[in-house]
């Protein structure tokens, strides 16, 4: 029983990592219908920005938390800029091309970031500084850390904030309009280019926040850390219903729990396959994800 509860904690902790990355995925997808494969790499860049920034900043401000906040803010800003540049240079010129073209460019951007990072940062893993010192919390035989709790609650908080932003602000409304119909939104006087750039900036900033929080929890970063996490987060987003913000978090948690339970009670050698098996099983019954709206094709 105790070990089951511990596995539950492990699962939710892993799931909140996927959820955090899936949020950005789902946002860009929701607005542009683009699977931004480079999202996982932005997550990695966020972690690296955090790594270099914290070497500059750590210890220069009065408290640990302030350190962490400054590093996080600057790195989110940096990634938002990368996101805007990426959208402007790589995606905007082909916005009206076929979906496949966009996808190939996304793959290209992802490869470009990965290979450049291997040259610039070096391929070996680096130790991410403990911006927030670890405190262990013991409950009976169960062990969890403050860092795990922070990741989970940040994911939940961002989910709520993002939802508020999209449904309660003017810009959010504009975003929904762009997502609904780009041309109609343009005709309504919405600066669609700006909205899309903003979406990328926001999505990338989310990825950076994810990269830093996860790296505080799991302090080994390397240039390819975003590949598998990105892929799993994407699976989580699809699982929950891509384009749906609650779905992303739900999908992330389900995926995290499933992986942990399979490793813990089944066979850990099949762990990577399980994510996809669950995905296939769920999509067979609910083709647009758990919370996704089924689209009826009009004739």
């Amino acid at each position: 029983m105790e070990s089951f509860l511990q596995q539950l904690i492990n699962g939710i902790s892993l799931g909140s990592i996927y959820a955090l990355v899936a949020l950005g995925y789902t946002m860009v997808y929701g607005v542009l219908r683009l699977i931004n494969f480079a999202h996982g790499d932005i997550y990695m860049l966020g972690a690296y920005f955090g790594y270099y920034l914290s070497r500059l900043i750590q210890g220069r401000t009065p408290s640990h938390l302030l350190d962490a906040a400054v590093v996080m803010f600057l790195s989110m800003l940096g990634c938002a800029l990368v996101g805007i540049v990426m959208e402007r240079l790589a995606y905007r010129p082909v916005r009206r091309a076929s979906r496949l073209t966009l996808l190939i460019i996304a793959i290209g951007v992802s490869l470009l970031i990965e290979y450049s990072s291997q040259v610039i940062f070096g391929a070996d893993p680096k130790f991410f500084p403990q911006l927030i010192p670890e405190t262990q919390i013991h409950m009976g035989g169960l062990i969890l850390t403050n860092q795990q709790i922070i990741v989970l609650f940040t994911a939940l908080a961002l989910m709520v904030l993002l939802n508020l932003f999209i449904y309660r602000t003017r810009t959010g409304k504009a975003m929904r309009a762009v997502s609904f119909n780009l041309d109609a939104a343009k005709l309504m006087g919405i600066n669609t280019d700006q909205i899309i750039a903003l979406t990328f900036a926001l999505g990338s900033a989310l990825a950076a926040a994810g990269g830093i929080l996860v790296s505080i929890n799991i302090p080994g970063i390397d240039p390819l850390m975003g590949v598998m996490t990105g892929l799993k987060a994407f699976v989580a987003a699809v699982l929950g219903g891509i384009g749906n913000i609650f779905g992303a978090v739900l999908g992330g948690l389900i995926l995290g729990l499933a992986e942990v339970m399979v490793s813990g009670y089944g066979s850990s050698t099949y762990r990577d396959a399980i994510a996809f098996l669950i995905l296939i099983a769920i999509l067979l019954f609910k083709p647009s994800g758990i919370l996704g709206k089924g689209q009826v094709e009009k004739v």
Partner: protein
Amino acid sequence: MKRLLWITGALAALALLQWGCSAILLDGPIRQGPYYYQIMILAGINIVLAVSLNLTNGITGQFSIGHAGFFAVGAYVAASVSYYGGPGIRAATAFLPAVGQDTVVLLLALAAAGLAAALAGLLVGIPSLRLRGDYLAIVTLGFGEIIRVVILNVDAVGGARGFVGIPKLSNFFWVYLLVTACVVTVWNVVRSSYGRAFIAIRENEIAAQAMGIDVTRHKVMAFVIGAVFAGMAGCLFGHYTMYLHTNSFTFVKSFEIIIMVAIGGLGSIEGAVLGAIFLTVLPEAFRGFEGYRMIIYSLALILIMIFRPQGMLGQASLFGKKSKGKRK
């Protein structure tokens, strides 16, 4: 009768080319010969992969990014046939000369690869009936990953240590025979009533259904045909490299095949062929840049897609009647 003549002619031409290639490139005066030969073989295998994926992706419009999965199934099944069954088959065909025995082993391995991949294609084709677009894409990607993880866990095919001891049975002749067979088959399928049904499904599924096309059957068929050729390519790949490891079959390989199709021009057979050759040669051409090679490669990829989003050939056809592209 005419067709028989064609086939004999093609076989003879390929045999001649094989003889020529090995005489000039492998044993001949050109010092880079074996290197070029190696690239030609890999290009051939990539052509089969790209053309077969093009049937599913480009022509039927079923977005699949799990092609490396079929490739892997074919490679491992075929390797198992010749590794475990090889001695038995040779004993049964002892009356043939060594070349004949090799041919029998390879043909059986090819058949097994094709069959296993067809089953896998059927398995993946079925979800495609309910899913479309990105959802289908992620399911096919997942399928490819599941295959890879399963192979890692099978000790009989080496698992993580790789499959060692596969006989070298494939060569230029076999690879380009498969290339020819694949291109001719896809070419004929596209120009048959099936092909028109595939294209109709791509353009508008509901309209196609309204026109009386059995969408279910055609979708699964596109998957199965694509998978069979990918599986056979896997067979020849394994019997050329003599060693298999799951690192050759990750989702990155699936991406590579998609990129070949997209760079060539989605839906164009010649485009897929060109794309495959281009993307096999391109990274080799960049070898001079050493550490920056893959950065330049990915930049080139992005630039080509930005400036030529429809691919090198678009949907155009180099030969024959130009197939009509999208109306609008």
